[in-house]
């Protein structure tokens, strides 16, 4: 029997439900491990790139509500309501979103940093650092120098990150992730692919993630017994 379950997660940095979904998945995976006990498999997570708004400029002139209003074609008041709601859900999940400080930007370089971090064994740390920087600290996650600062905070070589991002060394990996997402039919994020066979869409509740992991694990045990 395999001792691990692979979870491939498509998400964007500029996606409030992706950070919430990350926390809920982590809680669900913890609950699953506690339920299964000593025989619990290792849950291996790999993040994949998904750009919600690839046309966004690096230096977007306006706040998140203005962006949402403009791109979704809804009144600013409705966009503000949506932001209030997601901020409330985030808070209930233990995440303090600061939309007043948030700097909306293009995320393709941030995705390249995630691939750079994966190549250096630090992708999970990089994902958390980028989401936290964007949603709770008002840090810019679109410029090479700002990304390099964040990378150095998790122990990556700042100068080498600058070089890799300036050379678009990992751009092909970003595009490959996006192509694979299309193959899977992914239209929204976060999207979780479990064992390459099962898909879970959206920021589900932790209990749902725990249940899904349990279901997949039980099914695999039945097949291999």
């Amino acid at each position, binding site marked *: 029997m395999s001792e691990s379950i692979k979870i491939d997660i498509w998400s964007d940095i500029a996606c409030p439900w992706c950070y919430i979904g990350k926390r809920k998945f982590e809680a669900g995976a913890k609950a699953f491990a506690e339920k299964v006990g000593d025989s619990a498999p290792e849950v291996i997570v790999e993040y994949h790139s998904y750009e919600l*708004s690839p046309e*966004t400029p690096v230096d977007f002139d306006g706040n998140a509500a203005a962006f949402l209003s403009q791109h979704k074609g809804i009144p600013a008041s409705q966009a503000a309501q949506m932001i209030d709601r997601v901020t409330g859900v985030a808070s209930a999940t233990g995440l303090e979103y600061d939309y007043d400080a948030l700097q909306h930007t293009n995320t393709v370089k941030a995705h390249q940093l995630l691939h750079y971090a994966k190549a250096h064994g630090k992708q999970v740390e990089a994902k958390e650092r980028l989401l936290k920087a964007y949603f709770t600290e008002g840090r810019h996650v679109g410029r090479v120098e700002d990304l390099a600062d964040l990378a150095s905070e998790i122990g990556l070589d700042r100068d080498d990150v600058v070089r890799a991002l300036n050379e678009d060394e990992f751009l092909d990996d970003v595009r490959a992730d996006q192509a694979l997402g299309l193959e899977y039919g992914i239209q929204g994020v976060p999207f979780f692919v479990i064992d390459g066979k099962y898909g*879970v869409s*959206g920021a589900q509740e932790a*209990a*749902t993630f725990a249940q899904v992991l349990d279901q*997949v694990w039980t099914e695999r045990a039945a097949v291999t017994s």
Partner: protein
Amino acid sequence: MSDRSARPALTLLGATDAVACEGDACAIPSLAEVTAAVEKAFTRGR
């Protein structure tokens, strides 16, 4: 490069209408809708 012909279709699990970001915006159903969807998923699983 991935092989499209070899990739199996995914079986969707969990609540199908959970909150997610689509395109350049986020679909945000009410908390009541999310709760109902999760309860429905659990009922189906039993």
